[in-house]
């Protein structure tokens, strides 16, 4: 049945989409939570099975599907999961159960709408990772944004509505600029002949986009039009100003989706569209973007140093990490790309872990200022162990997962331009400084009054955090399978 009637990418989009719509009709909070969790686990199972069918020569058609949609426009409902797409879908599918588990005990107003929108967002994100047609890509890109807009605006802190609106306007503007780019490339694609003999004047298919006849100059400014959308999503300095506020004000499960997965949409956009479609544009302007990324890293790390707000600190540290990944991708060296792809996965895991911890602290104590906390370890030893491990992973210490990825990226930057490598090194040191000082201040030292009454973490939260820690160590010690998995896709992207 698989491969003939239904394929993995379709399942991965339709299950969350339908489950999400169903959630809107479930009134009872407990039922909707259980339903959403079961749906997300099902998606995880599908995505995990899909990993074993990645080899297209052995299993043709399992991870690929194509129907005509707006045929006369040369658009097709073309989904295909290559190894990078599979890895990121797996990350998305893995994150959702973790997110749902970690906030399972939390009361949620309008739970039906909340979980419905969460799953719709997931459908959009999974679509972005599998779209092999530019118009589909744009559709899913926006489909992920609209529910996220409602999620961020309806649940969260007091300033959430204006803050989210800023986020929306930024991303929407970026997306529209990308749309003009898509239209321009579309108009320069070769004619598309369909299998039944008919043809469309132009085409949105990925292969046609790669074959589009664009001069170096056109590629140059098209590069920026596409980059606008990706830069806002990642975010790259100076397009990041929406991000810390949004992370701070949104409900934590939403923040996890934004920072753990949605950020990867931007990076994925670089890999899937920017590098292959505009090689000359990248050759010409890649360097500028790398400068922006590196400046952003240093800038965000410095701000994270002085943040007193836990959530803001994590938000800025995320900007720094993403900057490194973007820079490494644009080196276009296989080690940099390998490292970036691996790190995209690991960063997703680690930052969700970090958010779970930060959220637990805030929920238990009611405080999110580092200066007002202290001595949590006395009351919550289990939480402290998890924090230390996740913190280490965030600093990219050896035997944690982030070490491998950061090392690969670092080496590619080193051979690209030593200055970038030096600045990256500074950022890694700064990361160690702010993470360790946070752990010292919050978990050790004098116990403050707000901490006195807290309890240790519950079983659900332990399960979620254990899964994360498991991934941290397994991928830290033995990353080889992931590297091999994405090897061929990355070789195709790297400059020869």
């Amino acid at each position, binding site marked *: 049945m698989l491969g003939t009637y239904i394929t993995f990418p379709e399942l991965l989009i339709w299950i969350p989409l339908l489950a999400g719509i169903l959630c809107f009709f479930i009134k009872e909070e407990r039922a909707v939570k259980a339903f959403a969790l079961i749906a997300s686990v099902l998606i995880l199972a599908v995505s995990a099975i899909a990993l074993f069918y990645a080899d297209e020569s052995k299993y043709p058609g399992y991870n690929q599907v194509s129907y005509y949609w707006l045929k006369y426009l040369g658009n097709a409902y073309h989904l295909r999961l290559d190894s990078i797409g599979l890895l990121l879908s797996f990350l998305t599918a893995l994150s959702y159960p973790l997110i749902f588990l970690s906030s399972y005990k939390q009361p949620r107003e309008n739970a039906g709408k909340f979980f419905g929108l969460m799953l719709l967002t997931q459908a959009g994100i999974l679509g972005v990772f599998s779209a092999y047609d530019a118009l589909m890509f744009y559709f899913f890109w926006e489909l992920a944004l609209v529910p996220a807009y409602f999620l961020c605006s309806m649940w969260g802190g007091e300033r959430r509505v204006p803050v989210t*609106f800023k986020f929306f306007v930024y991303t929407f503007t970026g997306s*529209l*600029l990308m749309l*003009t780019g898509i*239209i321009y490339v579309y108009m320069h694609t070769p004619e598309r002949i369909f299998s039944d003999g008919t043809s469309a004047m132009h085409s949105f298919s990925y292969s046609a986009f790669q074959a589009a006849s664009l001069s170096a100059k056109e590629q140059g400014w098209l590069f920026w039009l596409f980059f606008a959308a990706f830069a806002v999503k990642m975010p790259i300095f100076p397009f990041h100003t929406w991000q810390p506020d949004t992370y701070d004000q949104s409900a934590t499960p939403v923040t996890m989706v934004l920072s753990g997965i949605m950020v990867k949409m931007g990076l994925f956009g670089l890999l899937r569209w920017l590098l292959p479609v505009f090689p000359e544009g990248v050759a010409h302007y890649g360097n500028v973007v790398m400068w922006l990324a590196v400046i952003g890293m240093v800038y965000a790390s410095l701000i994270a140093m002085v943040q007193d707000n836990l959530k803001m600190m994590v938000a800025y540290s995320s900007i720094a990490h993403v900057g490194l990944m973007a820079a490494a991708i644009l080196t276009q060296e296989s080690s940099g790309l390998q490292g970036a792809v691996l790190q995209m996965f690991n960063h997703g895991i680690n930052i969700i872990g970090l958010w779970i911890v930060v959220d637990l602290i805030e929920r238990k104590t009611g405080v999110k200022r580092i200066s007002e906390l202290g001595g949590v370890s006395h009351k919550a030893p289990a939480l402290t162990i998890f924090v230390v491990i996740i913190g280490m992973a965030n600093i990219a210490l050896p035997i944690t997962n982030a070490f491998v990825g950061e090392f690969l990226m670092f080496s590619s930057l080193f051979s690209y331009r030593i200055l970038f490598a030096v600045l990256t090194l500074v950022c890694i040191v700064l990361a160690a400084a702010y993470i360790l000082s946070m752990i010292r201040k919050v978990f050790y030292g004098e116990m403050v009054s707000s901490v006195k009454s807290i309890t240790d973490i519950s079983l659900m939260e332990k399960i979620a955090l254990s899964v994360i820690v498991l991934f941290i160590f397994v991928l830290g010690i033995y990353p080889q399978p992931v590297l091999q998995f994405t090897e061929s896709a990355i070789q195709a992207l790297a400059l020869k």
Partner: protein
Amino acid sequence: MNAIVFTALWGVIMMIAGAFVRSTTAPRYMGMLGIILVFVVNAMELTSGFSLFTLPTMDMVRSSTFNLTFLAVVFGITFLIFLLNGRDIEKIGKHKFEYFAILFFILCGVSLVSTFNNLLLLFLGIEIMTIPLYILTGSDKRNLVANEAALKYFLLGSFSTGLMLMGIAFLYGSNPVASFYINNMQFGVGALPVLTVIGMLLLLSSMSFKVSVAPFHFWTPDVYDGAPTVVTSFMSSVIKIAGFFAFLRLFENAFGVMHAQWQMLIALLIVATLLVGNITAIFQQSVKRMMAYSSIAQAGFMLFALFAMNDMAREGLVLYSAAYSLASIGVFGVLARMDDITYGGFNGMGKTHPLLALGTTVCLLSLTGIPLTAGFLAKFYMLASAVQTGVYFWLVVVAVLFAAVSAYYYFRVIRAIYFKSPEGNNEGIKVSRSFEWILLLIACLIIALGINPEWLLGWMFI
């Protein structure tokens, strides 16, 4: 041809019926019946070329699948307005039959301007279309704002019609064969005679006035704001798209050969319209007035059809007409039922009227141009047609930036609907269950067109 005669006849029938029938609900049902019949006879002509009337038109009227499809959109939209806001038309005043009769006369004018092949018929059509509209605008006789709007509309409208007449005279005098037929103007490609240029500019200004393109838009906000909301709904949808259709038909046929010479002018008009419409809409406090400015902004996008003037633009204009009108009648339809038409009136609608809120939101998302709604594909067609011309790519970038600006004011309504708490129980919103379901039907149509526009555009190619 069917539609022109039938709408006029039905208008007369309703007018006479008004003298004899005393029933208060009869006009609405007769109106609906009439519009269904018009739709059917038009569809018959579209699908099988069947004509009810054979009149010696001297080739002054020309039908093709293109303009018949467009007329189908017009009648469909009018039907939805009757369905959604039929009661509100009755509530305008005492002369219930007359309001519906007038609407049918307007539709007759619309049919004329979408099928004309002769400048005199264009003039006639525009007059038949707008004079009844002046009456409808001021039909709420005791309302001073409506009176002001009607007077303003009438004075400025007659002025622009005067310009049009003068333009027609110039064209008649300057074309080599002294013809009123737009398909037989026989202008050369080279340097144009001064009289032709003046004639064209006069027609450009008067048509721009009719479709409220900046800088000829000054009447729009006051008239839209002052007229009874249901009339505004009609004005912003049917009248507007008919104006554009006539605009495109006139310029494509009469001045198509010298397209390159006036393309830049259209580009400037687009920028001015988008700028004025979007920026001013941001500062409005009343949603009705905001929608008036947003209709100017949307006109900027529709103007791309004239800018590009290729196949994609023609298809795009039909799709845009349908998409924009559906969303527009949805929002104005809701406004017609609200006491408080500021943003505050929408506060907490998501909690008190969930279905209504959902329908309104889909309309607003479509106006913004979010994928999976008709508004997205409509904007896409317009932008793609402009890119296809291969010139002025910057115009497309400017347009999408303004589309992003438009998100600000459309989403402001969505914010009020979902993220603000209601005052009391929103008693100011008086809608019935059936109203909500009709609005949802409109929302479904918007999404259906967003998924497969071929259901509409396919009719152009049968």
